[in-house]
């Protein structure tokens, strides 16, 4: 994968397949600490300890269609290449939290990429789920919560192209307004 927003899309797809109802995506850029944090937490089915131990093994997967599972190993590799780490906390029935840390200024850190397209793909594929996107750049913060959007548009579907275009533009503007640089 060439950008971190693609990893985020991939991990969120894991969350939705784990029957999560709400997924919180937090991106934090801290210039002084030279740290970029990606955090994806969900209220899905969670994992037991045996599964957790094998998460970054590319030859482990819970699926039956093929024998490899590259999502988390690729994210772990992206983090480690950029002087960071990957941590996963999970418990059955309670959900999962994936945290990836990157050295913000590391030359090998992948760019964050197109978060607006990632968010739109998440909503389009999973209109019945709720997503919260929080992007923090030092003291500035952008927040988007699909629960609020759904409440506001009432009987209009969140996948309506006009709604999606509105959200796409809002995300792009929001990220620019907080001065995000990742």
């Amino acid at each position, binding site marked *: *994968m060439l950008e971190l927003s693609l990893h985020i899309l991939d991990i969120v797809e894991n969350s939705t397949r784990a029957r999560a109802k709400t997924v919180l995506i937090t991106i934090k850029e801290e210039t002084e600490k030279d740290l970029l944090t990606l955090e994806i937490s969900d209220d899905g089915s969670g994992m037991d300890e045996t599964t957790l131990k094998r998460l970054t093994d590319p030859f482990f997967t819970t699926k039956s269609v093929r024998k490899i*599972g590259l999502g988390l190993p690729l994210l772990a590799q992206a983090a480690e290449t950029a002087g960071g780490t990957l941590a996963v906390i999970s418990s059955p029935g309670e959900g999962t939290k994936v945290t990836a840390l990157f050295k913000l200024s590391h030359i090998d850190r992948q760019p964050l990429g197109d978060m607006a397209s990632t968010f739109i793909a998440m909503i*389009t594929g999973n209109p019945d789920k709720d997503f919260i996107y929080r992007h923090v750049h030092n003291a500035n913060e952008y927040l988007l919560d699909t629960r609020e959007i759904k409440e506001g548009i009432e009987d209009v579907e969140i996948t309506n192209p006009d709604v999606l275009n509105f959200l796409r533009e809002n995300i792009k503007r929001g990220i620019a*307004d907080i001065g995000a640089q990742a």
Partner: protein
Amino acid sequence: MTKITIADLKKIKDKIHSQTEMREGTFKGKVTVHMGTCGIAAGARIVMDSLMGAIAEADASGIVVTTSGCAGLCSQEPMVTVEIAGQEPVIYSKMDANKMKQVFKRHVLEGEVQTQFALARG
């Protein structure tokens, strides 16, 4: 500012309501973009963007867009499945933004299967 307000959402809701009244919203078909790790790495998000853009451009209604995981044919990604009401599903492989636009226009809207991109039926 970028904070979404109730007024913003009301405006967009009213606009959509006025448009919806002018056309029928019956189900025409479903397009599934395969979004496993392999699909995403191969460009499924670009395909999804292209599809959403084509739907908006054509002002098409009654099209359901969804995602699915890996189907086990990673080397054929990005893959897209088109299901038109009353017809067998068609799986397209090695898609890109332009192929997606063509499949949407010619197959989803006009009913002509784009066999040159198709991997399988059913």
